């Protein structure tokens, strides 16, 4: 039995929506953690697109790439959260608009 086919266009559409939401999150939110989560969202939107195309073409390259992306995302989380914690400790804030040491 085959599961009902979901058209690849829908996956890509969902991926695009998730990516746009992530982008908007990065651009509009001031809380560093939320920006961080938005970046994760964008990464996973890309993962979704990769998986969709991989299924479309029956090619494992895309899925292989997903693992790399997830590994990098994990490393990014580790470093990024550590940075945020360090910034919070020194500035008592994680509002990214206040992070402009080089400007002044």
């Amino acid at each position: 039995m085959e599961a009902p086919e979901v058209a690849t266009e829908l996956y890509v559409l969902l991926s695009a929506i998730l990516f746009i939401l992530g982008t908007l999150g990065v651009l509009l939110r001031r809380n560093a953690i939320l920006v961080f989560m938005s970046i994760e969202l964008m990464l996973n939107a890309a993962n979704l697109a990769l998986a969709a195309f991989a299924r479309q073409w029956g090619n494992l390259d895309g899925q292989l790439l997903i693992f790399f992306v997830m590994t990098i995302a994990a490393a990014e989380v580790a470093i990024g959260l550590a940075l945020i914690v360090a910034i919070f400790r020194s500035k008592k804030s994680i509002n990214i608009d206040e992070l402009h040491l080089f400007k002044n």
Partner: protein
Amino acid sequence: MENFFNLVPLIVVLPAIGLLINLFAGKYLGEKGVSIVAVGASASAFFVSVLLWIALVDTGYKAAVVDMPLLDGWIRIPSAGVDFPWQFRVDTLSVTMMLVVTGVGSLIHIYSIGYMHGDQRFPRFFVYLNLFLVFMLTLVSGNNYLMMFVGWEGVGLCSYLLIGFWFDKPKGEGWKNSEAARKAFIANRIGDFGVIIAMLLTFWTFGTLDYYKPHEEPIHAVAHAAEAEEPVFAPEVETEAEAEAALAPVSPLGVFNQAHLWLEEGGHRVDFGLFTMSLKGTLTVITLLFLLGATGKSAQIPLFVWLPDAMAGPTPVSALIHAATMVTAGVYMMVRSNVLFHAADVTSFVVTIIGATTALMAGFIAMGQWDIKKVLAYSTVSQLGFMVAAVGVGAYSAAMFHLVTHAFFKALLFLGAGSVIHGVEHGHHHALEHSHGTHHDAEPFDAQDMRNMGGLSRRMPITYWTYLFGTLALAGIIPFAGFWSKDEILLDSLKLGTEQGRLDGYIGFALLLVAAAFTAFYMSRQLAMVFWGKPRSEAANQASESGLPMTIPLMALAVLSAIGGFLNIPDGFPLLGSLFGVHELTSWLEHSVVYAHAGSFNLLMATIAVVVALGAMYVGRLIYNDRVLLAVRRDPLETDPRTSRAFALANAKLYWDEFYFKYIIWPFRDAAYWLAEKLDWAFWHDFVHERIIYGSFRRATDLLSGPIDRGIIDRAFNDVGVGIRAAAARLRTVQTGFVRTYALGVLFGAVLVMFIILFPVIRELLGM
């Protein structure tokens, strides 16, 4: 005894050793040690000269050429054919000069011990004297003109050093001394210029400067020059020299024999590149230039002016350098070059006229001088004129004869004058001590002014008697030395006129005869003013005789002045000829002086000369009698209206110095100023350098640096910089510092990249 010839380098080396010892150890030796070293050096050089004399006699007067040990190849450039060895020439002429220089020199060394006693620079004086001997002996002993010139310049240097020996005398005296030294040096430089050019021409013409090559004998004419105008040659000439000539690479013959052969061949022309000149013409030019050198060194018109001033030096110096030896170097040179001078008729004429005129002119000036040494200085100039005139009339042996006798009696007179000055100075000090505190103290006293003397014959008998001998010799009274030599010159010049109809012979004779009368006159004037009558000052009254070191040389020279003339008794003179031999000096010199010829005795001539001399002395004695001298305390000729103008002229030295200043030195200085201010400063500096070179350079650089560099290049770079800065100022605002702005930028960038990548797909989709 031929080995003695090899000793000849010693005559230069010994005084050199003496001077080196005194130079480095003189300070520690004391006056006595310095004197022993210096006199020893001089006397041993004299001893060597005597040995050379003996050797010459022994070998039959055959000249020898000896190489300087270690230094024989002095200047040698084989590829250019230049070869100037330092060779000594021992022949009769050079040995004559060596004997005179070292003999008289030794006596004067001894005299100087007494004269310079107590001087603070006692060792230095003897260093200079020995140095002078070194150079003077180099001058007379060299076998080529270059060695002669080395000595020539060296004695000039010593003359300069010794004239200015007391350069630090107080009250401007030292300044005058050093000025006299400079004057002597500069006047001599003018003459040296002539010698240098003459040497260059000689080298160009003959390819060598050697008088004679080693083993070469002077070619003698069969007949004497006086008897035959064109020399005829002996048949057996020079096979040996010619054989060597074939082997030798360059110039097989020395200057004189080469000249002789070419003159004999006739028609030889000297190639000067642009033009050629006959040998006779070239020799005339060469000898005239040598004559210029001789007028400098031997104090003839026009360069004699330095010699009277040279009396600023210590008196032994005046005796040795400026009377007996150095000033005769010019005469020696001309006698040495007699082959060349004989060939150049024009030069001989000029030489005669210059010599005779100088003799007359200097004799005239000597009559108007008050300074005891100035009289002798002008007398020296006058006597040198006799010698030069003798060269001019071809009487080379007479010139050498007079050179020798003059060395004796003029050295004697100068030393006597030094003794007088010494004595009068002592008297002056003595007188001052006795009249201490009176007006005498402030009065300046000139110990050399003859007006302050008188009556010294009683106070200084040895000086007086020796001085009298010198005077008689100088005045030419028979039988003293000067008579014989002067008589020979007079006779030879007259013979040139009567026998060959040469005008210069007559002119020379007339001028020289008058000069001889002047000589006798000023010498009797000097005797009267210095020694006779009563003392005219307290200093003269208390003068004292000098010590033995000074009087012994005086006595020795007095003897030489008395008998020196017997060296060369003319033939035909009764008695003396058989006693002392006839023409001894001439036949001795003939071996090296090709054109030497003997003079014969002429009773009329001798009588005229002696009568003129005695008459002039008598007139002098009459005018300068004690009564007049004491009464006027001035010069009788000065006060007499008939002679006062002539006397003033003589006293002012005929205004030679003023003439030179007005017509040569000041115009020269003005020209130099003009050249410096107008040519150099105004034209060369202001116009050429400042305006043309600097100005145009300045304008060019102004153009480059102003409009081009700053206007175009700098502006271009600056404008680029300004533009970049303005753009950067705008771009800077992009950097807001908000992270989200950057994120937006990244987004736009990503979209743009995406758009570019996907552009073909989009175009396709849109169906374009």
